[in-house]
């Protein structure tokens, strides 16, 4: 039976998020002080050695990313926290920022020290104005206390564009422009905000950093799955008894999350499907529930860990209808910069609507498969590349549901 292990959420519900004294009394800002005494490179090495991998979806080694920015020579460097959290079913970054904002600030400050940046931004989604207030209060307190030294943090608000979670679109948005992804390379580590070397990490990634510095890389590496160590916060939604958040070691299985901590399916109903990682994640059946939730194990079964959203559907749910809903989402959120995504998301949605209304033909499924394959390799950014995933995975695992809706 799965058990929670709280590292990132250690202070959640324990301290008053709006009192910096509470955070300091709980040992807060000690890691930042320690980091400053260690020296820049040893801090980066420790984070790299811990194998802390990005919690925003791509799973890149955080210390490795910091190295690029450290090595770049520039008069100005930036640290950006990605708090755009737009994947449907995801609310973990909100929980971290609401319950322990100083942990995020400390993680960012350690990163800023290590890479040599004196300016940071938190890009928080526009749907969280109450979180923005908390962050701004926390920053003011940290300035008053002088704990951040010469590191300055500014909060910027997103404005309802899912694509702005993509790091280069996010950077465009901070620059005051339309949030359209840039061509990569160059990556932000080389040329990011206003062309300067920039670290972009997720809220949960930064929130892990103080404990890694305090307790060391070996301690962190010993937790969870060896290739993606530490914990991960999962946010449960849909047909599950405990619709809430859990922080667990990364080797916990999906089944343990849904049936152990999550309490199973309400109303005596049977499990049908789960979508992990938000709308861009795979929708998988019962037979894959024993997969550990870590990044690589999920990838091996054709699924994604993504943001850690766990959206559960019981036996009464219409899978084709849910997949159609995700198709509409991607059509709406496509930024329109590249043709395969702009046109592809529209066509997928069109065909899915047809199938969902019982007007589809058998050939439509082949068409979706081809279109999906083309998009996954030809779209400019992860949005278009992932848009077909819920469609392709439901056609694979729940073919009978499609067949039932398609005539002849």
């Amino acid at each position, binding site marked *: 039976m799965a058990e929670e292990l709280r590292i990132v959420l250690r202070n959640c519900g324990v301290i008053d998020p709006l009192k910096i004294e509470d955070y300091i009394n709980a040992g807060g800002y000690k890691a930042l002080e320690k980091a400053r005494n260690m020296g820049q490179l040893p801090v980066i090495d420790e984070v790299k050695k811990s194998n802390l991998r990005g919690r925003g979806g791509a799973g890149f080694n955080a210390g490795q990313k910091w190295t690029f920015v450290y090595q770049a020579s520039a008069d100005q460097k930036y640290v950006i926290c990605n708090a755009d959290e737009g994947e449907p079913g995801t609310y973990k970054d909100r929980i971290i920022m609401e319950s322990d904002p100083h942990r995020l600030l400390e993680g960012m400050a350690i990163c800023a020290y290590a890479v040599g940046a004196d300016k940071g931004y938190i890009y928080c989604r526009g749907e969280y104005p109450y979180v923005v207030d908390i962050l701004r209060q926390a920053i003011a307190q940290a300035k008053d206390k002088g704990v951040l030294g010469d590191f300055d943090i500014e909060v910027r608000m997103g404005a309802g*564009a899912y694509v702005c979670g993509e790091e280069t679109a996010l950077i465009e948005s901070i620059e005051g422009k339309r949030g359209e992804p840039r061509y990569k390379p160059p990556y932000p580590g080389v040329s990011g905000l206003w062309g300067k070397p920039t670290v972009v990490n997720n809220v949960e990634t930064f929130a892990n950093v103080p404990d890694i510095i305090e307790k060391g890389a070996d301690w962190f590496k010993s937790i969870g799955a060896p290739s993606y160590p530490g914990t991960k916060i999962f946010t449960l939604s849909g047909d599950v008894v405990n619709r809430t958040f859990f922080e667990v070691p990364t080797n916990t299985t999906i089944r343990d999350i849904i049936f152990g901590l999550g309490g199973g399916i309400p109303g005596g109903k049977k499990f049908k499907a789960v979508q992990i990682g938000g709308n861009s994640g795979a929708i998988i059946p019962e037979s894959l529930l024993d997969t550990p939730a870590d990044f690589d194990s999920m990838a091996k079964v054709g699924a994604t860990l993504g943001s850690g959203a766990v959206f559960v559907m019981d036996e009464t749910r219409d899978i084709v209808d849910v997949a159609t809903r995700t198709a509409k989402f991607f059509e709406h959120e496509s930024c329109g910069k590249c043709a395969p995504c702009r046109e592809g998301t529209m066509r997928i949605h069109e065909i899915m609507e047809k199938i969902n209304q019982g007007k589809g033909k058998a050939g439509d499924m082949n068409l979706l498969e081809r279109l999906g394959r083309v998009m996954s390799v030809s779209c400019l950014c992860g949005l278009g590349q992932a848009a077909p995933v819920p469609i392709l995975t439901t056609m694979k695992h729940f073919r009978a549901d499609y067949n039932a809706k398609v005539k002849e």
Partner: protein
Amino acid sequence: MADINTIINQYKSVSGGLIEAYHAIQREYNYIPEEAITEAARVFSIPVAEAYGVATFYSYFKIGKRGRYVIRLCESSPCHIAGAAEVVAALEKELGIKMGETTPDGKFTLEYTECVGQCQSTPVITINSQPVRDVTADKIPGILAQLQ
């Protein structure tokens, strides 16, 4: 109400401040008046088309009048399967308008949104950006009655 020019000018020297300026305008007016676009173009020294381009890119911004209470309903999958459609029906029936419309007295506007990050308590609506959780069709009359 603070006037448009005063609000936008506060962000003139902020790097990339255009979006922050739009947020400030929308906090004051609940929407972005047409004049704010041309004024922003002037203050930030960019073409009017670009100022429009930025404002229309972001679904959180709305150019043109909205009601005093902007009610947005999340239609992302977790809210969808939890009965968002019934909440839509109740809202439309109580207010006598369709999604996307504003009541003739200028009090309410109904809009769709994607996930607002409160998926533990679906379905969710937001009223002037404040989330209202676990909404059901029969709670709608009571919720609306509290908005004066």
